[in-house]
């Protein structure tokens, strides 16, 4: 494979061809204008960006979010995080091998500006679903707001979500694709003159004088708000296994950034660890981008994510290995395979159950944790602070939008605006949207064998009801109008409009049409893959809800109506005996997910806990066994938590090792958190005038006054 760009996508537009030239180790490569260095490198098949100074281990992308420094490269002589810096025409990029050299600069006449402090009623950190929704309410209430977001486009992780959202249409735009919800919210926020949006800006710290340090497009500024709203979302948890830092092992968030934002095809064969919604959705996004998904493993006996997401994946031909854990990612310099094994009821690996799958990428999607350091510091320092969305509690984006709205109103009220009380039903809706997936219900197959009607392959209580809102006949109901319930068709006339088939976020509704008579039924199935992959007359394999093969059928017609929003509605001619059970079309052939003939056993002792400083689980474990209970002492002895990410990744992993060693939480002293929460050059704090960015008053460095010291 030589081209690593996505050329065809069912939902996303294909951006312009690469026109920009840059070099990697002197070799000229092409990049798309505006893309980050990391994506430009991935597009050219490069995913080892450097080697660690401690042991020479290869390094690649990990968070793709500016939070760690694993993807650092040398760009035009300076060490930079490749995931945050756009590639420029003529840029010379080189791997960061070992420690970077701090380049010499002239001793020229530097000018400095004073770091200014701005005051504002409300500062919102994070322009994702929660922050944007809060900004809308605050905008309506006339509150002065600065909204800070680290990306060029607002929307947070919504911009990476190509799938249609769950929830209800009224509360959170259910049935609309996440990326479109993000755009809608951003457009709404930008209509308010009292809401100032600072994109490409990072919050760095909350200080004890209740000022918040912001790097605004590279320029440092302090903001002193009356109220702070932390809507910084979540970060991905990590996992310890052999080979867990090999280039090719990274988070599902990084993967979605590469694929859905930058239209990079970073993998040919992908394996996913973790059966929560994040992992299930990432696997689906991979399939849409033309990437084979070799499999997904989940340590629990059932996937934690929505069953519709799981079922959708299984129907497309991706095997899900429940009660399985990852043993190792294997390969010399980059991932070449993954080894998994079965777990027994006591979480022990079942000997002999190991299986190895060839793959080039292993996604870690083992859960999220709140980005709460700004909230904690503000609380400690007595700055009035609220949090919303994942920064408050990990839940779906639909819930984040709703808690954002609630916090917006609460803050407006706290700032003296006459907004009235938060409607009590908002709290109820927020609680419902946050609810975990409920009971699994046996699918009800209708008995009717005539006319037209939908079949709901929806068998789990989740907060979702767009099908009930969309039906023009009002014939789809949920008992008791409970959004958590499962829909039913109340046998009124169906006009075969197929809108319910198109709107279902779980792709779990089919429409059966018996009107032609004979021994075949027309079944409409939603399909979100490139149009080129399917046409009338093709034979496809159809599967039931759980992924069991029902047989091969002929495609009668393929259409992509506007209301389906890029999805296709595929009509197949199915025999009577299987028609009602058809829930999907297989897109991936079984041979893709077959294990390798022999198992690969990785011998290297490289179960890395702290990836910044490359501290192994063995080192941490031996300290714990020697009696260490303070994570700060562990840090002093091993450097775990001392690295570039600021101790954001390893504390959870270390705590887990403590638990494995039988140490209780009450015995453990946690890692002290100190600012700043992202590495920033000294020049930014110094206020060095670079000639770029906002015009500032220029002041010379410290005025040389009379010497007051007493040597």
């Amino acid at each position, binding site marked *: 494979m030589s081209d690593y760009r996505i050329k065809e996508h069912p939902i996303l537009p294909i951006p312009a061809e690469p026109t920009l030239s840059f070099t990697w180790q002197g070799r000229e490569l092409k990049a798309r204008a505006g893309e980050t260095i990391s994506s430009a490198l991935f597009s050219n098949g490069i995913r080892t960006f450097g080697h660690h*100074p401690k042991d020479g281990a290869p390094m690649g992308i990990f968070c793709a979010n500016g939070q760690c*420094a694993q993807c650092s490269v040398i760009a035009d002589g*300076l*060490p930079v995080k490749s995931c945050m810096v756009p590639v420029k025409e003529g840029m010379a990029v080189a791997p960061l091998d070992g*420690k*970077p*050299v*701090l*380049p*010499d*600069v*002239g*001793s*020229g006449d*530097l000018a*400095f500006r*004073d*770091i200014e*402090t701005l005051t504002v009623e409300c500062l919102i950190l994070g322009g994702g679903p929660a922050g944007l929704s809060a900004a809308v309410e605050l905008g309506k209430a006339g509150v002065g707001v600065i909204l800070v977001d680290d990306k060029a486009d607002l929307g947070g992780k919504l911009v990476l979500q190509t799938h249609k959202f769950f929830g209800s249409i009224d509360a959170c735009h259910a049935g609309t694709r996440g990326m479109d919800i993000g755009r809608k919210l951003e457009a709404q926020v930008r209509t308010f003159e009292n809401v100032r949006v600072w994109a490409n800006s990072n919050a760095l*710290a909350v*200080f*004890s*004088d209740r000022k918040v*340090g912001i790097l605004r497009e590279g320029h*440092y500024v302090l903001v002193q708000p009356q109220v702070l709203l932390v809507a910084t979302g979540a970060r991905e948890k990590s996992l310890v296994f052999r080979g867990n830092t090999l280039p090719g092992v990274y988070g599902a968030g990084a993967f979605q950034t590469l694929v859905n934002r930058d239209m990079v095809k970073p993998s040919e064969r992908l394996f996913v660890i973790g059966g929560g919604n994040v992992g299930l959705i990432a696997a689906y996004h991979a399939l849409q981008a033309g990437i084979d998904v070799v499999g997904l493993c989940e340590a629990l006996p059932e996937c934690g994510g929505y069953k519709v997401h799981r079922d959708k994946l299984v129907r497309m031909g991706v095997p899900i290995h429940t009660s399985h854990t990852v043993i190792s990612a294997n390969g010399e310099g980059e991932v070449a395979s993954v080894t998994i094994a079965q777990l027994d009821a006591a979480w022990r690996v079942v000997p002999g159950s190991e299986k190895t799958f060839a793959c080039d990428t292993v996604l870690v999607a083992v859960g999220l944790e709140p980005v709460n350091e700004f909230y904690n510091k503000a609380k*400690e*320092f007595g700055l009035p602070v609220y949090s919303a969305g994942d920064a408050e509690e990990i839940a779906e984006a639909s819930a984040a939008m709703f808690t954002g709205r609630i916090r917006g109103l609460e803050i407006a009220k706290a700032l003296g605006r006459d907004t009235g009380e938060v409607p009590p039903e908002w709290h109820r809706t927020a609680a419902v949207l946050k609810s975990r997936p409920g009971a699994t219900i046996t699918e009800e197959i209708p008995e009717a064998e005539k006319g037209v009607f939908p079949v709901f392959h929806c068998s789990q209580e989740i907060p979702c009801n767009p099908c009930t809102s969309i039906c023009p006949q009002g014939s789809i109901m949920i008992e008791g109008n409970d959004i958590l319930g499962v829909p039913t068709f109340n046998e009124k006339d169906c006009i075969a409009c197929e809108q319910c088939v198109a709107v279902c976020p779980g792709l779990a509704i089919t429409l059966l049409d018996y009107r032609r008579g004979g021994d075949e039924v027309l079944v409409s199935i939603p399909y979100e893959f490139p149009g080129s992959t399917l046409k009338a007359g093709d034979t496809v394999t159809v599967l039931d809800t759980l992924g069991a093969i029902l047989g091969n059928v002929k495609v009668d017609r393929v259409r992509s109506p506007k209301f389906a929003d890029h999805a296709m509605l595929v009509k197949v001619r199915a025999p009577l005996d299987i028609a009602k059970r058809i829930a999907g079309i297989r897109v991936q052939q079984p041979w893709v997910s077959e294990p390798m003939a022999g198992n690969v056993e990785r011998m290297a002792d490289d179960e890395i806990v702290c990836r910044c400083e490359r501290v192994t689980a063995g080192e941490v474990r031996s300290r714990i066994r020697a009696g*260490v*209970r*303070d994570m*700060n*002492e562990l840090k*002093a*002895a091993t*450097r775990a938590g001392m690295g*570039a990410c600021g101790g954001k990744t390893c504390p959870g992993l270390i705590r887990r090792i403590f638990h494995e060693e039988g140490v209780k939480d009450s015995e453990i*002293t946690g890692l002290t958190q*100190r*600012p*700043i929460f992202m*590495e*920033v*050059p*000294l*020049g*930014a*704090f*110094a*206020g*060095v005038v670079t000639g770029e960015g906002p015009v500032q008053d220029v002041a010379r*460095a*410290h*005025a*040389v*006054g009379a*010497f*007051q*010291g*007493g*040597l």
Partner: protein
Amino acid sequence: MSTAVFDVIVIGAGSVGMPTAMHLAEKGLKVLCLDQFASPGQGSNKCAIGGIRATHSSPAKIKLCLDSLRTFGHWKEEHGWDIEWARGGYAFVAYRAHEERLLKNLLVVQKKAGLNIEWKDREEMLRVAPGLREEGLLGGTFSPEDGSASPMRSCLGFHRRAVGLGVEFRFNEKVTSIMRRKGKVVGVRTDKGGYATGCVVNAAGPWARAVAQAGGLDAPVVPDCHEAGISEAVAPFLDPMVVDIRPAPGSENFYFYQHKPGQVVFCITPNPPVVGSDRRETSAYLPMIARRMVDLMPKLGNLKVRRTWRGLYPMTPDGAPLVGRSASLEGYIDAIGMCGQGYMLGPGVGALVARLATDDLLEGDAAVLEELSPARVFGGAEALK
């Protein structure tokens, strides 16, 4: 009260208490070391930036730090534990005639005390610390035998050795009273229990006054607060600790160096001093020190800051430590008031306290103890703090 009996109880397991406990155990004593925090060095030791120099202007501090330098400089060979010692020297730079004069005057005293320190002219100073702003540089002093090490790794190294020598440690345990009978120390009570002893060493750093008061005594130690920071790791480019003693709005001197693993550590002396024990981070620190650093060495503008923190300097009225026996309470020894230099003084002070506690003083110790006597009359501040 438990029946545990110790020869000495050291209060504080940090920069001073840890080497003191170790040296006491080397003398064959049964030692208990108590600390209010969860593990070694979690008070002020971990806030120290790691500079170690003998180039002071006080004879006692020069002698103690020369002792310390010997300990730090050989720790890895002797004990197999890397404390990241690097002999990079200290460079005090002068950009104005005023500082040149001050530093040259001081040089006379320092050379008289036998220190290896020289005046470097502008060109020589640019070789000592490449990247310094050339415009206006007059030169400065350079002391090549000074250096740096990791305070945290040193404290853990001393801890390992102390444990090996039989010192007992109790962490997360706060002293509530030093028990006395007939003018003598008889034990220590904590929030968790009690221990019998005839000798207590106060090595509680910025918390020394409260410990002294727990024994019915007092100590003129008041903490003030300094903020420090550390950068990403880069390839070696700077050997010495660079010190700029010029004042600027909001600050006195500031200093920085590149430690052995490659990170640049930096600190500034605020003016006016921030008195008290508030260690919460301020928004003023980074812009203040960043501007001075980048102005002094422009290439630092591209160096990424990783982390900042605040630490406490246990200050005394005259800026010199308080080391010695109490005149009013037998068995009570002060090793306090290090004024921000507890890390570099620690091993020297610890060895001295161990000799004092065992009545095994060496030649020269008496002069040091006289200079640092807790009972002294406080005069003016030391020239080069």
